[in-house]
């Protein structure tokens, strides 16, 4: 298929690097969501009165009917495992010494992707109730890691 033979001392490619750094504005909805997480230890959603849908995390518009949403509501810090996975590899492709459980936790009509801890991976079940474990208030900085993980209740 490839007729050209390259001895190893011949240049065949050039190495490139693209150092990308970005800033991501939270916006009105995420700022409110993370402020509540940091300052009050609560999870906020917004309710669409037309669709009767509770978006978690809260958003300022309904993706179903495009109405502006203003009805902010705190949801219970306890949700159900909608689905989960057990990760055996790190981002760099190396194997983890201990596998880690990642779950999608249903809260309202949305939810959060987060770590699941204080449970053996073999004991996790779809539908089980789990609660958010927050960092102590003085350690919270207003991002998703202010929740350390979810744990069974």
């Amino acid at each position: 298929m490839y007729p050209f033979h390259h001895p190893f001392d011949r240049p065949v490619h050039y190495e490139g690097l693209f150092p990308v750094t970005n800033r991501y504005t939270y916006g009105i909805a995420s700022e409110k969501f993370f402020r509540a997480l940091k300052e009050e230890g609560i999870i906020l959603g917004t309710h669409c009165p037309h669709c009767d849908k509770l978006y978690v995390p809260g958003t300022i518009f309904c993706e179903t009917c495009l109405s502006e949403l203003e009805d902010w509501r705190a949801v219970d810090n306890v949700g159900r495992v909608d689905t989960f996975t057990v990760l055996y590899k790190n981002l760099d492709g190396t194997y983890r010494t201990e596998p880690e459980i990642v779950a999608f936790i249903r809260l309202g009509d949305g939810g959060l992707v987060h770590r699941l801890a204080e449970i053996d991976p073999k004991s996790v079940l779809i539908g089980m109730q789990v609660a958010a474990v927050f960092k102590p208030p003085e350690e919270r900085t207003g991002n998703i890691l202010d929740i350390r993980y979810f744990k069974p209740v």
Partner: protein
Amino acid sequence: MNKDVAIVGVGWEGFHPTSVDYSYKELIYQAANKAYHDANVDPRKDIESFISVAEDFFEGTSIFDEYTPDQLGAVLKPMHTISGEALHGLISAYLMIRSGLFKIVAIEAHSKASNIKSITEVTRYALDPILQRPLNFHPDFVAGLEMQRFLHQSQCSISDCSMIVQKNRYNALSNPSAAYPMSLAETKLSEDDFLAYPLLESHIAKPVDGAIVIVLANGDVAKDISSQPIWIKGVGWCNDSYALEYRNWGELSYVQKAAKMAYSQSQITNPIEGIDFAEIDDSYAYREAMTLIALGFADNTTIRGLIREGAFYPDGKLPVNVSGGSLGVGYLFDASGAQKTVEAVLQLRGIAGARQLSQPSTAIVESWRGVPTTSSAVVILSNQRE
């Protein structure tokens, strides 16, 4: 005005785990040469517009559309690049011809995956920067979550998904262009090498390099230049919410809607009767099963039995991924839909060699943009104009 549009030429270069000699431009040039020969067209005279499909981060070059005209014969001609799946490009070409403004359009898609030294980082960069990236998970956690929910709803097992890997890699034995063929006897898949339980490493299609060019023409031109035009009977595309948080993990509603759109244009009311074979997404083995449900060939109660009875083998009720699919051919990222289209064209022309199906007339082609997207497109092809 004649509304029919046909594929009149296909050409590809590949597919190989690596391609150290050819640059991506040379891969595309090879594919283009073959496609133009197949279509019996002179690209500089006959082809009126060109579309390439490329994503900057995979290319390693910003504003990549600058780099696409020359190798296709598109310099100083109408040309644009779509950051989407190859099927989105194919559908755009179809619509351009349907508009009546163009008679012959070419599309190009490629993968030079072996040049991307940090594929996992590129995929991670597609995750929500605020809600998911800080968690620092391997991005295939998304596939793990989706597969787990699918197994829960369908009663399929990990072994059922392994059977899909076996089928597709076995099919690839009859495809000389496939990079990852394997005989059934050899595919005793280890069922303890998990990346994201229940997702096994062996259930993930491995990348390949390659390029595909496809030439489309309106009905009158197609009839004149091609002895075997393959007609586009229907097209559909759809995206769900981008948010993992708002997603329904157990079903592929966007695939279902894209298919519904294409079925209605093709006047197919029952896909089980109207479709002879399918070339669909299998970038993760479980996705083939989920996609078959979304396309209307099975439901959550029947899929397990159909997999186990071999219904999707070449001699089964509905041959699926006879080419070997992405698991057997190799994963071409956004060019995957083009590889699947080429297979459908070869089968419908009756020139698919050792893997030729018995006189198929209608095919469905589906592709998905991969983790973490909800972006899918569907095309229905036939060798019958009416």
